[in-house]
């Protein structure tokens, strides 16, 4: 199944078992109940301990996980999953369709504080004709529904009589994934061991240790002293600190695309930003490449709309605006923004063009981005203030209540291109995600169609249009897509980055006997 990395002449070394893999991260997990885990540390562990019905392959296509296959029926109104047989929970109990049904029921249970209920509310009912078949019937055709079934499935026999708020399961989970939970020392480490009975094959690396080191600099020192085998690097670390011979001998660095982008959103209810030509002009005035150099040390790409280049929905024909401050000035002048009073700030109806960018505290990159934009807009006569706010205040008092002119934020995306919640004109209520109050009937229609269509080619067409319209309308100034950067200890073989990251084939990683560090 795996391909040998060496050339054909050499004999391919056989993977050996053993050793441990130590991951360092600044945060501890919060809960290991899959449908409650919303932070990234929890998600790492959940992904190793549990399995969903479907998962992505390296081509960003959905493939079976706990489900062997599926059929779309009734013109997209129903999905029938055919489950793997002979899959057992880590405690030996067999996995069946009952577990899928149980998981679904919990996802829509109002007493369970899960953040993932949304997509499952589109389901009309879920039937289990037999122990290994699950039939999901939607209220109307809903193409993102299939992706939503990557949701890890939970064991009914252990959880049916438990309260999700108090259960011990949250700190001692039992799943069907490649690693079994062993122990959790809060704030310190989480230990997993290889699941010998994993349905694909037993992982080669015996133990997975998740270490909590709550300080980015200390974390890096631990990496340098080989106290951990993997960590996500910051751009500066990737570029500058890992250039030593010492480091290169011990670690391999990987760079792969991140599914998400950073943007500056305008409040479209604001008079200044109502005219799309103004927004386009601002886009001309900001040098995105400079942002990438300055903020990301070159480790990122210019964003050209809602989708990242790796997504199948990405439209190659949408080109980012070039950096052209002169053009920006011309366009603004056409819209009536000119410096009439000689104070170096452009004005209209006696008022200078000035606005404030709000961003949240604790994210340096966003702040630096805002600072560079501030300088570029000054060059064309726009006065920008920056205000950094504590996260909860930022969201509650300003974003939710739409009390802002512009904000600097980022979206992390799934592989499913559906962005109904973000841009559809019906999603502008308080606390909903179309906080810029964007409304374009043409786009609304496309977003609805995208959700109802299952044919990938047709969807592609739809989302290409979506991207084009969005980039043209500029409800956001789309800025950049950062790269994901990691360092992995060089003793691990078979580490192959792909469009979906590097962790997807973790069960195939292995360490030659002679290089193994942890032997007991």
């Amino acid at each position, binding site marked *: 199944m795996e391909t040998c990395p060496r050339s054909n002449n050499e004999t391919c070394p056989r993977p050996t078992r053993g050793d441990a893999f130590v991951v360092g991260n600044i945060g501890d997990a919060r809960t290991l109940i899959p449908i409650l885990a919303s932070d990234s540390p929890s998600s790492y562990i959940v992904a190793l301990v549990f399995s969903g019905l479907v998962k992505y392959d390296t081509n960003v296509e959905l493939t079976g996980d706990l489900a062997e296959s599926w059929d779309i029926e009734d013109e997209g109104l129903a999905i029938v999953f055919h489950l793997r047989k002979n899959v057992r929970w880590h405690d030996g109990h067999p996995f069946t369709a009952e577990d899928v049904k149980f998981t679904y029921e919990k996802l829509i249970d109002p007493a369970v504080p899960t953040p993932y209920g949304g997509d499952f509310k589109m389901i009309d009912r879920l039937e289990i004709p037999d122990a290994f078949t699950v039939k999901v019937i939607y209220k109307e055709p809903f193409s993102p529904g299939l992706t939503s079934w990557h949701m890890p499935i939970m064991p009914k026999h252990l959880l049916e009589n438990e309260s999700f708020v108090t259960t011990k399961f949250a700190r001692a989970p039992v799943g069907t994934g490649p690693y079994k939970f062993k122990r959790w020392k809060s704030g310190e480490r989480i230990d997993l061991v290889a699941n010998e009975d994993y349905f694909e094959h037993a992982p080669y690396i015996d133990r997975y240790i998740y270490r909590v080191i709550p*300080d*980015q*600099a200390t974390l*890096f*020192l631990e990496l*340098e002293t080989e106290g951990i085998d993997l960590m996500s690097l*910051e751009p*500066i*670390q990737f570029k*500058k*600190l890992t250039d*030593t011979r010492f480091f290169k001998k011990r670690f391999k660095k990987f760079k792969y695309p991140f599914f998400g982008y950073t943007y500056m959103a305008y409040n479209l209810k604001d008079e200044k930003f109502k005219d799309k030509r103004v927004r386009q002009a601002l886009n001309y005035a900001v040098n995105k490449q400079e942002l990438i*150099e*300055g903020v990301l040390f070159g480790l990122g790409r210019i964003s050209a709309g809602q989708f990242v280049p790796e997504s199948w929905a990405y439209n190659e024909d949408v080109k980012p605006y070039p950096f052209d401050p002169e053009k920006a000035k011309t366009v603004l002048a056409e819209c009536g923004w000119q410096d009439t009073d000689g104070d170096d700030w452009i004005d209209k109806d006696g008022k200078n063009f000035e606005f404030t960018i709000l961003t949240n*505290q*604790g994210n*340096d990159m966003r*702040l*630096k981005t805002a*600072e*560079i934009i501030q300088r570029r807009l000054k060059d064309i006569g726009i006065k920008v203030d920056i205000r*950094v*706010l*504590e996260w909860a*205040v930022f969201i509650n008092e300003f974003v939710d209540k739409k009390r802002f002119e512009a904000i600097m934020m980022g979206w992390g995306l799934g592989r499913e291109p559906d962005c109904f919640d973000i841009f559809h004109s019906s999603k502008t209520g308080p606390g909903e995600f179309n906080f810029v109050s964007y409304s374009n009937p043409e786009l609304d229609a496309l977003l609805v169609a995208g959700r109802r269509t299952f044919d990938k080619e047709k969807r592609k067409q739809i989302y290409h249009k979506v991207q084009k319209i969005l980039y043209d309308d500029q409800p956001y100034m789309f800025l950049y897509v950062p790269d994901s950067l990691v360092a992995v200890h060089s003793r691990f073989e078979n580490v192959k980055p792909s469009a979906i990251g590097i962790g997807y084939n973790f069960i195939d990683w292995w360490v030659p006997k002679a290089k193994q560090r942890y032997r007991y």
Partner: protein
Amino acid sequence: MKNKLMLTGVIIIILLILAAVFAPKIAKYDPTYINIKEALLPPSEEHLMGTDMLGRDLFSRMLFGSRIALTIGIVAVGLAAVIGVALGSIAGYFGGKIDSVIMRFADIMLCFPAFFLILAVIAVVGPSIFNIMIIIGLTSWMGMARLIRAEILTLKTRDYVLCSRVLGASNFFIITKHLIPNGIGPVLVSFVFGVAGAILMEAGLSFLGLGVQPPDPSWGNILMEGKAVLGVGWWVILFPGLAILITVLAFNLLGEGLRDALNPRIK
């Protein structure tokens, strides 16, 4: 020896104040000016203390950092002193119920480790220069209140105070003419030490990312940013640390000297 130490402290403080006041004149660069091409340059003639990872001139940032350190130190402890002296002298002079209510309140406040209390408040109101000053002020008046109260308790039984009362003096006359002038010494000493403490506190908070927020340069957050380049940019770590050390040292020396001057017995 003692006097020399105190003099050293005074000179350093004066230099710091000058640096802070004239920071915009001395600094060659805008402390927030980002120049990626010049990132992480070691100290040179162009950049006396080198540049940080965004190519900002460290010397300029340090200069402006001294403004923040001194402002926070002095304003915060000034606030604490005003609250402390007011509450402490009321408690000490009037005694009785007022005294026990005020001092019990101070006792309760003193039960909380200062850093914990400050962190908790920051969790609520969010970090900013203004908030840090107010929070440090509001959580560090207790020592001074106790000091001035203790002073007033002994001073008010001094014979000259009794005489003054027999001569018909009012409470106000006694407090302002006798008690405060004679009792303010320890508060002054405590103020100077307090400034040192507040500067350390601010640096610590900023170092944790809960103090002064970037791009405002504080020695603590320069150090926090420097932490990320520990292996390759020693100057980003060295200078802010030294600056904090020297400043705190200077205030401590001054405090120690003042204490000796006001209390000749421990010479």
